[in-house]
């Protein structure tokens, strides 16, 4: 069994034992099982999946980090939403706003552009998760 913890700056989202975890790592999706080598990885916005009691659950997370040790995975992220928490219309609107802003951002402001791209990616990940099971 693997202990999975998901925390955001605002609250602790999840803390329980699971049998496996799939993380949206910076270098592609990464599966983690028990006794994984110790690792710290940057996370990109995307879908995090874990299996508990034979059932697969999915969360859409924002960018952040994961710390993996042999018996524990700690995920630090800006946000984490389950399928039911996602409001499709609101996400679409937020994505559109961010895209519009992105067009206005000047070329020098790389950080702002990167932030907006991350926001868009987070929104996209949430939408993808929401629409997957239809």
């Amino acid at each position, binding site marked *: 069994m693997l202990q999975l*913890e998901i*925390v*955001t*700056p*605002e*609250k*602790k989202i999840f803390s329980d034992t699971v049998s496996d975890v799939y993380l949206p*790592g*910076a*270098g592609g999706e*990464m599966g983690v099982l028990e006794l994984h*080598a*110790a*690792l*710290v*990885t*940057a996370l990109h916005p995307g879908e995090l999946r874990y299996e508990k009691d034979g059932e697969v659950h999915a969360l859409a997370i924002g*960018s*952040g*980090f994961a*710390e993996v*040790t042999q018996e524990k995975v*700690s995920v*630090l992220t*800006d946000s984490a939403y389950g399928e039911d928490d996602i409001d499709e219309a609101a996400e679409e609107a937020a994505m559109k706003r961010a895209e519009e802003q992105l067009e206005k951002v000047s070329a020098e402001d790389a*950080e*702002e552009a990167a*932030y907006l791209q991350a926001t868009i990616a987070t929104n996209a990940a949430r939408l993808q998760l929401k629409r997957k099971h239809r």
Partner: protein
Amino acid sequence: MANLRDIRRRIKSVKNTAQITRAMQLVAAAKMKKAQDQALAGREYADQLNQVLVNLKENVDEESHSLLERRDGEKTLTLVISTDKGLCGGLNANLLKLVRSEQNEHTTYATVGKKARIQLEKTGDEIKADFVVADPVAFSEARPIAKFLTEQFLDGSYDKIKVCFTNFVSTLTQTPHCSQLLPIEADKLAEKRDYEGVGKDVIKETDHASAMSNDYEFEPSPEVVLDTLLPQYLNFQIYQMILEARASEHSARMVSMKAATDNANNMIDDLTLDYNKLRQAAITAELLEITTAMKAME
């Protein structure tokens, strides 16, 4: 001596004041609870972040990162986190006293909250930026502030970035505090942050022994992880400091409003006593007049 009607009026007005201060006290109490809970909820995140930082420290050349670079210059940008509203005791006055004592001719300010801005404007200090944050504060609101401060530091406008805010110790005690935000001091990174008042015991000194027993790999590389982690760390610091300031504000307001309510109630008691005395005197005088008139008629 005041007459009856004047006293009655005063009692009424004091009663109104007491009602308002009491309402404010209750509102502040509720908000204080919320702010404290919010600060505590961020603790887990802080804990994890610290742990990752400790591990990272061993793997990268600390001086290589531009946010860690120490410069000799004196130019300082100080972010002052104050309240938007008054009626919170000496909170802002104490904070400003500390800010003034740290001030030198190279200091420029940025502010969060109206009170500090107004005060600093009055003395003609240069205010580079003013931020408005909602209540309760959201994590996303800390980002623009952190970004602005980071930019000012990186483009060389300032050599040091400091933050002054009121540290929440307990409901009755709040102490003003100034700490350096940039350059990030590598030795202090993973250590317990001394200003953290809310739930002080929760953050333990990160356990070096346990951290070191794991030989971490970094994906994609330690530098990339550090590059993304440090800005995150700054955002989070700013967020935590605003939360501390908010918790202080609401508890200070609650305490001062409670004092105001108590004072108003005492005043009502005193005034009621005066009123009754005066009324009694009037009745006695009237009776006296009637009796004298009767005596005169006999």
